[in-house]
């Protein structure tokens, strides 16, 4: 099939995601987990509508724009909110993206609740869960569940700003079906999950 990306004609196969043929910034997409279009960083304009490139399949005759002024503004805002609510200290690629978009998180003022204040959880010999650094992309939940392992030791709990992945009922990891495969660490883009061996 053929479609147009930023005015250029592009060949694509049936079932290809827009993310695979365009190159928008993205956070919650991973080829081995069930991508759900959560972070909205990869929004692109498709025939005038904004759609996440990570869950939208290419179709014949689509007109796709990936870098309009409107998208730039939207991405800047999304990144600012991420930086405002989250410690991105161990997410160099997100910090670089924020800088590239001239983000100024402080222009939104102070938050009523702040997940940056969460204490790291250290309940097993292998890794810690530092949810102050979590952006709720859910990659860890998906890697643990349907995406890779089928273990379901992680789930999303809480609402709004306090929403975060944790274990069911917040149990310590050794009391869950967790097999400590660390596939959640591998997909975590922000260092919210990281091996104890990397701690000084």
């Amino acid at each position, binding site marked *: 099939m053929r479609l147009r990306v930023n005015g250029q004609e592009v060949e694509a196969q049936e079932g290809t995601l827009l993310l695979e043929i365009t190159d928008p910034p993205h956070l919650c997409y991973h080829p081995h987990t069930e991508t759900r279009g959560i972070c909205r960083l990869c929004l692109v304009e498709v025939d005038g509508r904004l759609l996440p490139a990570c869950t939208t399949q290419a179709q014949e005759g689509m007109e796709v724009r990936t870098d309009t002024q409107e998208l730039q503004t939207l991405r800047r805002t999304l990144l600012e909110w991420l930086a405002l609510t989250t410690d991105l200290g161990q997410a160099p690629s997100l910090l670089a993206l924020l800088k590239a978009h001239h983000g100024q998180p402080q222009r939104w003022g102070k938050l009523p609740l702040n997940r940056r204040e969460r204490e790291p959880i250290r309940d097993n010999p*292998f890794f810690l869960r530092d949810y102050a650094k979590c952006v709720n992309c859910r990659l860890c939940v998906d890697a643990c569940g*349907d995406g890779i392992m089928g273990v379901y030791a992680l789930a999303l709990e809480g609402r709004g700003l306090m929403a975060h992945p944790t274990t069911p009922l917040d149990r310590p990891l050794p009391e869950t079906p967790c097999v*400590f495969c660390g596939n959640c660490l*591998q997909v975590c883009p922000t260092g919210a999950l990281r*091996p104890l061996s990397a701690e000084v």
Partner: protein
Amino acid sequence: MRTTCPYCGVGCQVEPEIQGGRILRVLAPDIPPNHGALCVKGRFGLDFPFSGKRLLYPMVREDRHQAFRRVSWDEALDFTANKLLAVLKRRGPEAIAVFPSAKTTNEEVYLTQKLARALLSTNHVDHCSRLCHSSSTVALSRSLGGASMTNPLEDIWKTDLFLVVGSNTTETHPVIGAMIKKRVRQGAGLIVVDPRYTGMAEAATLWLRVRPGTDLFLLNAMARYILEEGLWDQGYVEERTEGFAAWRASLEAYTLEEAEGITGVEKEKIALAARLYATTERAGAYWAMGVTQHTKGTATAQALVNLALLTGKVGKEGAGLNPLRGQNNVQGAGDMGGLPDVLPGYLKVAEEAGRKRFEALWGVGLNPEPGLRMTEVFQRIPEVEAIYLIGEDPVTSEPYQDHLKAKLEALPFLVVQDILENETTSFAHVVLPAASFLEKDGTFTNTDRRVQRIRKLLDPPGEARPDWWILQELGRRLAQALGRPWASYPGPEAIWEEVRRAIPEMMGGITYRRLEREGVRWPCPHEDHPGEAVLFRERFNTPTGKARFFPVHYTPPAETPSQDYPLTLSTGRVLFHWHGGTLSRNSQLQEAYPELKVEVNPKDAGRLGIQDGEIIQVVSRRGRIRARAWVTDRTPEGVVYAPFHFAEAPANRLTLDALDPFSRIPEYKVAAVRLEKLD
């Protein structure tokens, strides 16, 4: 930098980040076979090379009662060569056994068996797959003419029904376990045959809880039912197999009713399993130690082979016969001739054609008598006077530990070449410190025949040296004394080049340059060949090109429960540890699973008054061990399950050395025991 995980046969690709003498983190690249996924061992258990128990210097002593003396490499190698030469001169090659390791590289196994065969003239060459899949090897070789997985791991995504027999896949091959479970979530069926409620049983669409050691009866009954119902693949059987009539006649006694009585599985469930397996086009059989580690291990593996042939499952995508190999390089160790009856490429030592090829390549005459198998070598001490042991810990892994220790005490000369001190080191006369997988180059071959690189990321500590270097130096000394030729290799790639020349039909197309990107599967005869994924599409590797049915019959285990020993002990592994524990217990994994826990069914525990978490004793006719009781219905009533990783509480003090008549594998899965409270 990318390398290959040293734990199991999945062969996961790993990228350890090393800094300041420690591993910071381990990530995995998005390439086959694991596509970024790992298990706890690959992710968190790669730090054993930094253990304080590393062997750092060569050491020797005249006899076991002296202390070790630290010596130079020259002195250690001279000492070893002289001792081996003295035994050779006095007693002949039959008195020397050389054990390569399924944890060392292909290049190192090749060099080990070359040293044994070309210099010491002995075929007493074997390695630890003797203790795991030797039964599968016998059954697959004699029926199909090849003893590896017939299908690639990628075929899991094309499989519509898995028949998993005696494999605790999610704990012993976790990445494959996760793949199978994911495929089941996508809609494939999963039949699990296992006495224990494992992670696979939990994920199964149909779980057949057989009594330990009765799966052969179940598999034969499935075959009989499939024949009776006319569900077999008549065209396939006629065109591609032989020996069918005699085998069919042998199934007479295996009715569903009898099977229910023997196995404890309802006959309707057996019939359903048979029907599903026979009628699903893409049905793949997977199995492991639950099948093989019995006195009838070969027969049980054979029953699976027969069943797959009957239903036409071999040589097709998404189906096949898939033994899950244990050690990281157990496939490669066999391919490289680390076995008593075959040269590299499975050319038989007893057949002139194979011998001729290697006599020409190595420039020496070769011994035509197949050697002894590992379990037999230990039994033949002190007739066998010298054992050169690489990367193995038989004191922990062989059955009937007290018996084995007595044998090792009577052994006149033992060389231990290893990376870490283990239970066998204290029996050695020479200790040769080897480099770990992080400290050398080479290749491993994973369970689905994929040859993959390992890469040197670190220098070995102390005076440790790669096994290939040690073998080459020892070989040089032996060759000089014996007046025989011995090549000198600048590094592992040069050894691999010799392997390519030796067995071009199998490895000819696999070069280090190709392996830079990702692994390549054998057979791969030339450099433009992509490597074979599914074996036996057109013909089997037998003289007639047809697969062969072999009748096999059920026999009870060597030791059955009695009044004094009323329970059945089954041994195996847990997710957090690896075999004798030498690697995993010297890594971060030890913290997660520090001590032996034996699984006891709540009904048995209730009857004996045993509480969950209580320290108890497990007693067999051969010895006793202390363990913490884990009261759980994972294990069925009447069965106690003990992992064998713990040197201080070795499950193999309890097991017996009854052997399978064909593969000489011990019956690790069934021993009669009783439980005793401590007070």
